[in-house]
């Protein structure tokens, strides 16, 4: 089944997901010291879906994203991506997976400040051993696609918050990841700029067939997704579509 076929349309939340999950969490538990952040969180995300993870501060939503993305290893439970057990992979394998299959956008762009915008976007391709010329050509095309083609020579300190987030988005998508993980991607932006960045994120992901897992506390941002999962006290309270709760 292609990613496009598997994608759920907006408004389809009342119907069971027809596609097998591309990304799946089963009973994920993760503590930090004595403090449990996740206490058995389960969820499934179909290929091509745009899913928002919502919840109050401290509910465990960011930890869940980090576990799904192979950044944190769960204390117990399973994380499956494309049928593979991410939780059982070693550090090197998870790093490789993150580099080849996943893209990331965080609240503060986290661009390398010494590099230009164009360098930042080309960087993941260079890490993946793409040819330098092709890498820069592709990086430039992504900057243009996100309407910041004229910002390529600027360093992050010379960019506005919205421009920096677009650069971060270009950097996340330039490798054509299967899954884009975004943690409060518009959290540091004003509402108008945040909305533009969000629209670009969702539109680009849909055009590329990229699955998106988005953490947000903002209902307006969550409304850009096709489905929202609520995390409370370390558990996903609605892992199934609403009608099946």
């Amino acid at each position, binding site marked *: 089944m292609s990613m496009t076929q598997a994608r759920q349309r*907006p408004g389809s939340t009342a119907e069971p997901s027809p596609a097998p999950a591309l990304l799946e969490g089963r009973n994920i538990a993760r503590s930090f010291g004595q403090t449990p952040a996740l206490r058995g969180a389960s969820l499934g995300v179909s290929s091509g879906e745009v899913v928002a993870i919502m919840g*109050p501060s401290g509910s465990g939503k960011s930890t869940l994203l980090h576990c799904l993305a192979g950044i944190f290893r769960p204390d117990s439970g399973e994380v499956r991506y494309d049928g593979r057990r991410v939780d059982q992979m070693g550090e090197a394998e998870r790093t490789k997976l993150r580099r080849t299959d996943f893209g990331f956008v965080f609240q503060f762009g986290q661009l390398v400040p010494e590099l230009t915008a164009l360098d930042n976007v080309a960087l993941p391709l260079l890490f993946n051993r793409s040819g330098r010329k092709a890498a820069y050509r592709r990086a430039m095309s992504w900057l243009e696609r996100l309407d910041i083609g004229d910002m390529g020579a600027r360093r992050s300190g010379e960019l506005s918050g919205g421009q920096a987030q677009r650069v971060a988005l270009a950097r996340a998508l330039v490798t054509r990841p299967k899954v884009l993980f975004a943690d409060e991607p518009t959290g540091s932006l004003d509402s108008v700029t945040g909305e533009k960045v969000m629209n670009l994120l969702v539109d680009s992901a849909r055009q590329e067939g990229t699955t998106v897992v988005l953490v947000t506390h903002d209902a307006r941002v969550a409304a850009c997704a096709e489905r929202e999962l609520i995390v409370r006290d370390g558990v996903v309270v609605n892992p199934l579509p609403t009608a099946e*709760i």
Partner: protein
Amino acid sequence: MSVPVSLLGLLQREPSYGYELKREYDAYFGRGKPLPFGQVYATLGRLARDNKVVAGGAEPGDGPDRRRYAITDSGSEDLERWLSEPLEPEPHLQTALFTKVVLALMLGRPAERYLDVQRAAHVQRMRELNNLRRTGTVVEALLADHSMFHLEADLRWIDLTSARLAVLAEEVSR
């Protein structure tokens, strides 16, 4: 709008009299806007006509004779449906939502789940408005924005209330 269902909710706990229902309504839901006696009895009359409550025979008391009202199966079904189904997401439904949460806690129903269902309905409506904003004219977008900001306010209230359910439950339980 939520007076009939509030009375049904109070009667779901136990059969009661018009005066008692008014007193309880004012304590839990009135908040500076007491329910007129006329409206209590008119509402009870309509509920009795529609077979949602039944009135007992006249009972002598200290004052005038009074009637004891009890909820019927049909009234209980209406109440359960109202509690468990999300309200139509629209601006200014705070009073109805508030009533729903208090009644749910009072009757030992899963208030948190009702709030989750309501949140899902709200986000779904925001999704529709979002599409309208992106495809419609500027005027349509501004109208959609107006609705979205109100829905956002509701959602913030839903989140806050979810976080305070335990305290609220203590307050409304007898």
